[in-house]
Structures are given as C-alpha cells and as structure tokens.
C-alpha cells in the first residue's frame, strides 16, 4: 500500500511530469509504458526504504557458472578436452586453456550483431528458456528462437575455429 501511495505521489509530482513523459507514438501502448514506470518507481521506493540489495557472493558465483555454460558448450562441440573441469585446482594447463577460450569467445562475440549477442546472453548468461526469450525479443514462437540460436552457435563455432581454437589442442 505504501508503494502504491509512493507511486501515485510520484506520478502526480511536478504537475504530472512523469506521466507527461509518455510519448504517444501510436505504437507503444500507454499501459506497457506505465508498467515500466511503475516498476521503476516501486524499486526506487524499496531502495529508499531498505537500501540497495547487497551484492552477495552467491549470485556472482551463479553468474559465473552460467557464463561458463556457453564456454563449456562450445568446448564440448569444439572437442576441447579438459575444459569442463578447468577450474579444478592443480590443473594449470586446463585452467589456462579455459581462460584462452573465454578470451577468444569474448573477441568473437564482439563482432556479432547486437541482437545475436543479446540472444546468447539471455540463453547462456541468464539461462532463460526459449519461450521466454521469444517474449522478450519478439520472436514469433520458441521454435524461431531455437532456429536462430542454432544459426548463431554455428557462426560462433566457425568463428572460433577460424581463430584457431581447435588447433590449440595439444
């Protein structure tokens, strides 16, 4: 209820400045826009009240694990052995290779279309199901998501091979 009052108060403030920020371009729905603004205001309210969420270690570790999913997937496909347990202590060679692979991946991804990079991020960093990616990015169905993912992964594989990742196999 507090959040609701806060929301109304802020929408009303400065002669409805926030509400007047909505640009009716005929394509963006007012309701969608209002959901965006309302969510932001609610988060502001929660932050003011309880402070910013502490950056705990757990999500960080999870994010790291998620990021490795793509590396692992590529490693598997590229037949780079030993990457799966690369972080294991006492295997400096595999650790080095994983680092190398990550660096190569970052370099290759930088040259990709933003849309494809976003697709990979949502899939492998955020671990979203294809149906949800479709809703976020505006794919018609989840099958379109899979199709695009496969195409992008194919490009990624080719680009990584082009960088000689496969050849780095001892």
């Amino acid at each position: 209820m507090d959040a609701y009052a806060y929301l109304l108060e802020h929408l009303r403030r400065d002669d409805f400045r926030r509400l007047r920020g909505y640009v009716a371009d005929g394509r963006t729905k007012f309701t969608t826009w209002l959901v965006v603004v309302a969510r932001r205001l609610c988060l502001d309210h929660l932050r003011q009240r309880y402070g910013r969420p502490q950056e705990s270690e757990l999500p960080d570790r999870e994010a790291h694990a998620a990021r490795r999913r793509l590396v692992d997937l590529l490693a598997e496909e590229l037949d780079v052995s030993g990457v799966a347990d690369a972080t294991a202590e006492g295997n400096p060679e595999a650790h080095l290779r994983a680092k190398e692979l990550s660096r190569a991946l970052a370099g290759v991804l930088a040259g990709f279309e933003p849309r494809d990079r976003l697709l990979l991020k949502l899939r492998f960093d955020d671990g979203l199901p294809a149906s949800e990616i479709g809703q976020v990015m505006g794919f018609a169905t989840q099958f379109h998501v899979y199709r695009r993912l496969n195409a992008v992964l194919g490009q990624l594989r080719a680009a990584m091979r082009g960088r000689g990742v496969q050849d780095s196999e001892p």
Partner: protein
Amino acid sequence: MAAHMYPDPSYRGHLEAGEVAAYLDRALAPSERTRVEAHLADCDACRTEVVALARLVRARPNPRRWYLPVGALAAAAAALLLLLPRPEPELLEPPDYREPVITTTVAPVAIAPRGAITTAERLVWSSVPHADRYRVAVFDDTGRVLWETQTSDTVTVLPDHIRFVTGAPYHWKVQAQTSWNRWVSSDLVEFSIGPPRP
C-alpha cells in the same frame, strides 16, 4: 538515452522508460532496436529489467472487452449499430440454438435533438438489443415533465401542443425496457430551439 525523462541518477546511462516500453511493444525502428539490443546485451541491469517486465506485461490478462463498462464505448457502439447497415447475422456468428445470455445492458443513446437546433419535430435514439419498449420524456429547465410517451420504435414524433420557447434550454431522455420492470436510461440530453435560419 537522454536522461531528461529520468533524472534519477540510478537510471542514468541506462535505457529510458520509453525505450524499454517501445522495445517490449516492438515499436522501435530497426536502428533504434539495434541500439537498445546492443545496450541490453552489455548491461545486466537493463536486461534484468526487460526480462522482468516481459513477464509482467505478457502475463497481464487480456481485457475482456465485452464486459467493459458501458459509458462512452457502449454509446459509440450503439450509435454505430444504428448507422451501419446490419450485417447478415449468420455470417458473423456460429449457429446458435439458444438465446445468448444477456450479460451486459447497453443504454440507449439520445441521438436527436441535441444542442442548438432550429426545429424539434421528433425524438430519435439508438436501439437497445432485446428492448421491447422505450419510454421517452421531455423536461423543461426546471425539471418539469412537458411530455412523456412509450413506444416500441426508436423514434417518436413530438406532438404539436408542446410549445418550445426560443432560446430556452430543454432536456430529454429515453429509457429502454430490457426485461420485466427493468429500465436502462440514456443520459439527459439538452437542446434548445434557436431562431429559424434565414
């Protein structure tokens, strides 16, 4: 990503509310969309926001339009119904062997006379589905009933004996009987008789 819309420092450098909404509604031009997607690919905070919003926006139930409050919508619909030629019902509706259950009542709309007019000879209103009877009443400015009648039609002729004073405001409304002893009323509409145009 102009910050003028969102002076809050925590959103500076991030996507504007308008951009996020436009992205979710697929309303961005290709170049704009590419720019937004490039930001989303690199910015965890904005990506988290867009994913959460996509869940919110897509999960919203569709408004059930036929249950929307009557008001202006019904008035517009009723007026349209009156003006448009009736489409063949079998083309639009699947065969129905039962009378549809009436879940909403559409109020009749007083169509004419309205506002300043030169002569008032008859009253016209929109029809209400399943209404078998209409009751119309004309009032003067003090609310006194000048004339009242009932009809099954959607038009009635004003009798000669009512003398409207030029320039004085009058009101009228129509009620439709939708079922036994249930009446749904139009808004009260004002009109006045001006001098005849030369």
